[in-house]
């Protein structure tokens, strides 16, 4: 965005857009790079500068930039819709209805057009196949006596995705806060992030873990002794939405970039990288279910935003500090 | 010329120097003499420029070099200094110490490499350290360290040479040697030398002018002979001449000791200050000592110290302790012996002198 002076002269390039786009994301580095490379193949005149970090860091950085007077980011792509709701509420997002969004289920697109989901990441259960013979099919395995002390989950206090799951799961009728209380009673181990959950289960420290699907599927593919299970009650899903910052200084290029992500080509790339695409009609990668194959647990996003702090606080209390 | 005017130096609440006034002429050899803790090192440090005086000022060659507000740093003063604690650099060899001073001192900065090497050799030879040129300070004995400090200070022939007890760690033999070296450097370079010592022999032997200090104040500034023969204050009489101060009454040109009114002692150049306080200084070698009780002042031997050619006695006379030096050839006395003291021959001569000359 710093070199945004050129942005106005939408002209001579093959695609008609030029300039620099600052892309802030929490996607894995390699994935973000692949996406940018593919985009630049189509739009060689556009320079995409990537800043990648954890969702929390990215959000803090934008907040701090805002505080200091000038947001550098043009396009933002982080884990969950709630984060975008927050920025939307602070009126930091540009409203843009991408033509590509039509092929995406309405529930994953913000009605005001400030953000759109880019892929589907369900949270399921990862199982260590060396320790467990019979695959479970329900969340209840995590609260079952037989798995006492052998379960693990990411902390909602550190991971945005886990916080989302917390809010969604506690709003399900048959789960609610009792579910988390039972997890506590069952001596569930809490780690900082999904990566540590996978390590714990793969190494056999624990037998079951609550985990975002693609990590488990990828590990299984690479040969780790794990398997991913989608519980029958349904799974919470985050969509890694993408949005454009309101004060972007390269609106054209930003829009082109968002269009590309949502386009068929962009979605295929996501699938190749190992994620369930959000656009209808594109195959999910091996080991993952497509959107229509899974039973999605949902909750009202704007309500989740309001409830998040309270939920996290309550989580803190349930798992009370020592 | 160095002009020290009314300089006072305090360490916290402790006054180490008070109202010191001294003038040091170009080329003069000045010794600062005084007991331990009297402020000698402090005065020298002020001259070197390591700290500011609390009050008063120091002028060098007409310009103010130090006052309580400004300070000309040591490296701009064209000085050399021998430190009481040696202050050798542990990472440099003996030769490197001398070389360093030659290399950086204003007086010798432009010396060529060859001249410098030759000079290093000369200086080390002068202090007898040539064979140890490549040693590090940790490998030297106390006296050797002191000589390195000396060599470093004199190498560049500075205008002012400050020496803080530069010979205290040396044996007599070597000390004599070094004294001569320092004197000949003095003659060669016409540098002003300020030489701190607690050894009055050294001060008397070497200096043109001796400053006697006590408790941060100056007691007397005079040439060695005047100092020794005509002390101005009780302190100087005792410290420099090791005088016994006898109380009594001055009548015209002679002195009558209070407790021995039958004696009459002539005026050997006693200063007014002492006269006005009714004192007569007798140096230890002026006494004649005789075994047994006799015609004179009676006392008893307390200590006897053999000193080779002399024997030093401490004699208890009533409730005072007097010091008496005699030749070792005379018959030896033991502690406890009863003796009689009288003013000896050399004094009798002096007794006559004032009558003739004054």
């Amino acid at each position: 965005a710093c070199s945004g002076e050129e942005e106005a002269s939408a002209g001579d390039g093959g695609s008609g857009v030029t300039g620099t786009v600052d892309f802030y994301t929490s996607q894995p580095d390699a994935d973000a790079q692949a996406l940018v490379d593919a985009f630049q193949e189509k739009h060689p005149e556009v320079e995409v500068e990537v800043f990648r970090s954890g969702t929390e860091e990215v959000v803090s950085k934008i907040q701090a930039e805002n505080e200091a007077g000038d947001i550098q980011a043009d396009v933002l792509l982080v884990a969950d819709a709630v984060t975008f709701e927050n920025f939307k509420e602070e009126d930091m997002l540009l409203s843009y209805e991408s033509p590509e969004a039509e092929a995406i289920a309405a529930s994953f697109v913000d009605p005001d057009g400030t953000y759109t989901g880019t892929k589907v990441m369900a949270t399921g259960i990862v199982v260590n196949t060396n320790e467990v013979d019979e695959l479970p099919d329900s969340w209840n395995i995590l609260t079952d006596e037989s798995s006492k002390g052998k379960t693990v989950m990411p902390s909602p206090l550190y991971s945005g995705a886990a916080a989302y799951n917390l809010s969604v799961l506690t709003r399900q009728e048959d789960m609610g806060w009792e579910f988390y209380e039972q997890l506590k009673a069952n001596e569930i181990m809490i780690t900082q992030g999904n990566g540590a959950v996978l390590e714990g289960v793969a190494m056999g420290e624990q037998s079951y873990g609550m985990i975002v699907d693609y990590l488990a599927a990828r590990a299984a593919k690479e040969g780790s002794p794990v398997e991913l299970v989608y519980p029958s009650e349904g799974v919470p899903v985050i969509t890694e939405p993408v949005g454009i910052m309101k004060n972007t200084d390269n609106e054209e290029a930003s829009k082109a970039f968002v269009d590309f992500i949502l386009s068929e080509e962009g979605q295929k790339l996501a699938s190749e990288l190992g994620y369930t695409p959000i656009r209808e009609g594109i195959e999910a990668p091996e080991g993952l279910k497509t959107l229509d194959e899974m039973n999605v647990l949902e909750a009202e996003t704007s309500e989740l935003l309001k409830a998040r702090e309270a939920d996290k606080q309550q989580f803190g209390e349930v798992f009370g500090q020592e | 010329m160095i002009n020290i005017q009314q300089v006072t130096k305090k360490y916290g609440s402790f006054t180490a120097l008070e109202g010191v006034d001294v003038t040091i002429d170009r080329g003069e050899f000045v010794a600062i003499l005084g007991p331990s803790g009297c402020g000698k090192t402090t005065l020298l440090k002020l001259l070197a420029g390591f700290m500011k005086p609390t009050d008063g000022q120091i002028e060098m060659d007409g310009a103010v070099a130090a006052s309580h507000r400004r300070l000309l740093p040591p490296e701009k003063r064209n000085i050399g200094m021998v430190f009481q604690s040696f202050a050798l650099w542990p990472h440099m060899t003996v030769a490197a110490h001398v070389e360093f001073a030659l290399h950086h001192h204003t007086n010798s900065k432009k010396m060529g490499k060859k001249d410098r090497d030759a000079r290093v050799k000369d200086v080390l030879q002068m202090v007898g350290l040539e064979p140890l040129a490549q040693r590090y300070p940790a490998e030297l004995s106390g006296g050797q360290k002191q000589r390195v400090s000396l060599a470093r200070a004199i190498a560049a022939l500075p205008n002012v040479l400050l020496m803080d007890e530069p010979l205290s760690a040396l044996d007599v033999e070597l000390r004599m040697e070094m004294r001569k070296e320092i004197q000949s450097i003095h003659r060669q370079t016409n540098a002003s030398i300020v030489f701190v010592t607690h050894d009055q022999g050294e001060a008397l032997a070497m200096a043109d002018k001796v400053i006697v200090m006590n408790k941060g104040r100056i007691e007397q500034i005079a040439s060695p002979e005047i100092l020794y023969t005509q002390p101005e204050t009780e302190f100087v009489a005792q410290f420099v001449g090791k005088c016994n101060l006898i109380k009594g009454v001055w009548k015209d040109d002679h002195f009558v000791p209070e407790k021995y009114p039958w004696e009459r002692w002539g005026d050997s150049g006693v200063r007014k200050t002492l006269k006005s306080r009714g004192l007569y200084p007798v140096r230890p070698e002026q006494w004649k000592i005789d075994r047994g009780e006799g015609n004179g002042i009676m006392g008893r031997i307390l200590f006897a110290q053999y000193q080779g050619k002399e024997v030093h006695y401490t004699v208890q006379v009533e409730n005072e302790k007097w010091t008496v030096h005699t030749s070792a050839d005379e018959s030896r006395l033991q502690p406890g012996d009863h003796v009689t003291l009288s003013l000896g021959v050399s004094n009798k001569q002096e007794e006559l002198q004032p009558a003739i000359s004054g």
Partner: protein
Amino acid sequence: MITNQPILERREKAWPFSSVSFKKKHVYGWLGLLFVFLVFMLPVLRLVWLSFHQEGALTFAHYTEVLRERSTWQTIQHTVVMVFGSTLLAMLLGTVMAWIIAYVHVSGKRIMQLFIFLPFIIPSYITTLAWTQFFSGSGPVTALLEWLPGQLEAPNLYSMGGIIFMLGLSHYPLVYLFTVNVFRKIPRDLEEAAATSGASRKQTLRKLVLPLALPGIASGGLLAFLSNLDNFGIPAFLGTPANIRVLSTHIYEQAIGFGPTAFSKAAVLSVILGTIALGGTLIQWLLLRKSRVTETVTSDPEPRFFLSTFRKRLLEFSIWAFLLVTGLVPFITMAALSFIKAYGVPFTLENLSFKNYAYVFLTDSKATAALSNSLQLAFVTMSICLAAGTALAYMRYKNKGGMSRMAEIFITIPYALPGTVFALCMIFMWMQPVPGWNPGIYGSIWILFIAYVTRFLILQMRGSYTAFLQIDPSMEEAARTSGAKGWVKWRTILLPLLLPGLVGGALLVFLMVLTELTVSSLLWSSGSETVGVVIFNYEQSGYSTYSTAFSSVIVLAILLGGLLFLLFSKLWERKVLKGK
């Protein structure tokens, strides 16, 4: 033959602006202080300001709100326990190790010294991982305990004790580094004097050696204290499962919260944390106030304590056991992971491959770029800190007044803040250093330089200051009366005498920058990724096998660098000190 701070205080008057008039000296002093204030304190003040600020008005509301919460107090309590516990442990381990290396006749000291640094340079998440595996249900400790009679259970690392233990182990090298040279510089004859006074070895140690080593122990202790306070990785890893929150993790949780008050709350917590850091600094001053230091003789590498052959072997064995367990075991754990194809597969030949290395160094261009960036950053930052930190230390040494203390506090604070918070401060400050003007520092590699210098300068300053305390003023005075001034005096006299101490501080800065993670993860921009960022990103995306491969290479490289350094220092001693 001895000097102390009061003596310096007296000479200070002449320095450092000796030939300038009294008034001007003050002006320079204030200008310098202002500069330090602007660079080091202003960014933090933005944060402090946030904590008092709500919708454009000044308020204490954030404080009352935060302080009303029970969890805040619990967090503070945890923090205090954790920091003091781990600092004590670090000081104990560091001092004992330094004493043994400096004093006792054991073989292989140089190599030992290298291994002492391992726990410090291996990323703490790796160390923690290794230790949790070591103590886990399937780990060797449990196996050993089961084999032993009695109902022994492996200690649970996911606890306050575990956190203290891990922090202490990670930061004792700081104390070691600062203390070992001070031990070596204690003149032997002081101990001989105690011995002839009839004091036994133990009494001499307690009444003489330790008090004289205090400047080193206190300096190292302060840095360990600050490092323990701002450490995020270990309490996050070990504290999360046990639900132990300390300020650094609590701030993180707050800062990532949403809503307009999140930053303000984090700011309030940061202020509390800063207050604790100040407390540590004050304790250090108190400790140092009474300490008096010895004149430099050169540092004396000869051992002073000889043991019988049996005891010597026993001691060597224990030291190596300790070093291997604390340094090598995590390293091997990490290296082993880096060769494995996927998590959880058995460690057999067919499961091993170089695939992770191949990815990191061949496929992913970021890693090598990051390595070169980090090396550059480390060298430049180290050089700047070496110069600036030593200059500041010199002023602090010459001038004990309030101003230099103030300056010291200013540069301490950036190191005490958790990395994330500090990075936010840097954004506040440098995106628009003057409101409305964005010079483009932020968003380029420059912001990293500035951030690193700001954050790590204190390390160099402490190192240099400790080195200065070991030098008798007469060393410098002798140089000046010999006519050496300014740079010559530094080059020929002060620097050679200071070198071991300076190198220690510089080494720390270098290593810290090379492996820095939290600050960089917010401040890097494309093209300026650092080693820490790359590792962090691998880690976060669940590619820990890549990160272990990368870390292994880095640690190996550092070890090699360390070996080179040993060679250098050996040469230095030979050349400069003639290796007595």
